[in-house]
């Protein structure tokens, strides 16, 4: 508890915390998007005839993961 008070007293710039939060969210989203992209590429290599479908669903899934990261960005925007 005292640590929080200390932080509040010393680091008044909450923007820094927001930036850290956004960065953490970006790490998570990066891992998620990377996994989706990797699996999609692997699947495409295995079944090149399914490329169109795989690409479409991969992009949609990436958009979902990205949205989660952006949720975090929104939270860090709330001051």
């Amino acid at each position, binding site marked *: 508890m005292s640590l929080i008070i200390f932080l509040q007293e010393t680091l008044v710039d909450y923007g820094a915390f927001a930036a850290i939060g956004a960065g953490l969210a970006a790490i998570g989203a990066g891992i998620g998007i990377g996994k989706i992209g990797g699996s999609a590429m692997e699947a495409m290599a295995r079944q090149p005839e399914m490329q169109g479908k795989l690409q479409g669903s991969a*992009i*949609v899934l990436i*958009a*979902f993961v*990205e*949205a989660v990261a*952006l*949720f975090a*960005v*929104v939270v860090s925007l709330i001051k």
Partner: protein
Amino acid sequence: MLSRFSGILTLIFFTLFSANIFAIPAGSSDDSKEFDVNEMIMHHIKDAHEFHIMDIDGHAISFPLPIILWTDNGLVTFLSSEFNHDDSGKIIVKRKGQEFVKYHEKIFYAKNTGGDKYVSYDEAGNVVNKKPLDLSITKMVFSMFLSMLLLVLIFVATAKTYSKSRKGEPTGLGKFTEPLILFIKDEVALPMIGEKNYQKYMPFLLTLFFFIWINNVMGLIPFFPFSANLSGNIAFTFVLAAITFVITTIVANKDYWKHIFWMPGIPVPMKLFLAPIEFLGIFIKPISLMIRLFANISAGHIIILSLISLIFIFKSLWLAPASLFFSVFISLIEVLVVAIQAYIFTMLSALYIGSAIEEHEH
């Protein structure tokens, strides 16, 4: 066809309102002030009562928009140009025996507290002045009307091409719009709602998709009369998500409610455990819809503006090519993202509606 329309529209707007566009020395513009990136970006992201077009020699050129207020003394309307570009609560406008000031794009009742400002703050720095109900045609509302006009023109013209063509094959504009309509029909409505009921929800889904998409795209075009961050505004996404929520709740059948409150096929303790979660899910689904669209579009605008701002932050022209290259690159990605987000919003809406009217077999 599309570009012709937008060209005509731009022309109409410029000719109709050019008399109102005039240059005034910007009230708060100060050349010696440090460039505040945060303020610039937030100013762009947020709503405004006038449509700022550009600055020439420190003079703001903006497009005045009507301010409509529901006050204690009834309806009050005036043009935003009466505030003389002031956004810091220094200029008051008198109407119907009341005084109004604009502070950070919000209209307050003016209250002189000494000094040149007519607003007062509490300890946290929030304005404590009373506010009238603000129903102004703001930048966002103006942009929304423009998008409506565009949509109606495009799709009524599309509908007309069908009556002209033989055998109902698309001609002209229809060749561009029909694949999109068929995409919503075959990839969104049919798989998500099912063959039996999808026809009923097609108009809603199509309106939703094109309304979101055109506003997303208009937000990406960086000059007047576009560039408003409408679909990155939480009020806009809130309304659309709320409409989906209302439809889902109204059309939901007995099965849907049963699956929420008394999930069949699992033991009673689990039922008790799941019921509150599922109940919260009803609200979380539209909220996630709302936040997803808002966050994606706002983030896109913020990224592009931040990249452009790098030039001003580092005060170096040498950075301009890199900054420009990245912002163009992100803009191109955004063109894809805004289409995907419109698609995802429509698809999830269809999915929620579909799950509400789904007939279960057990």
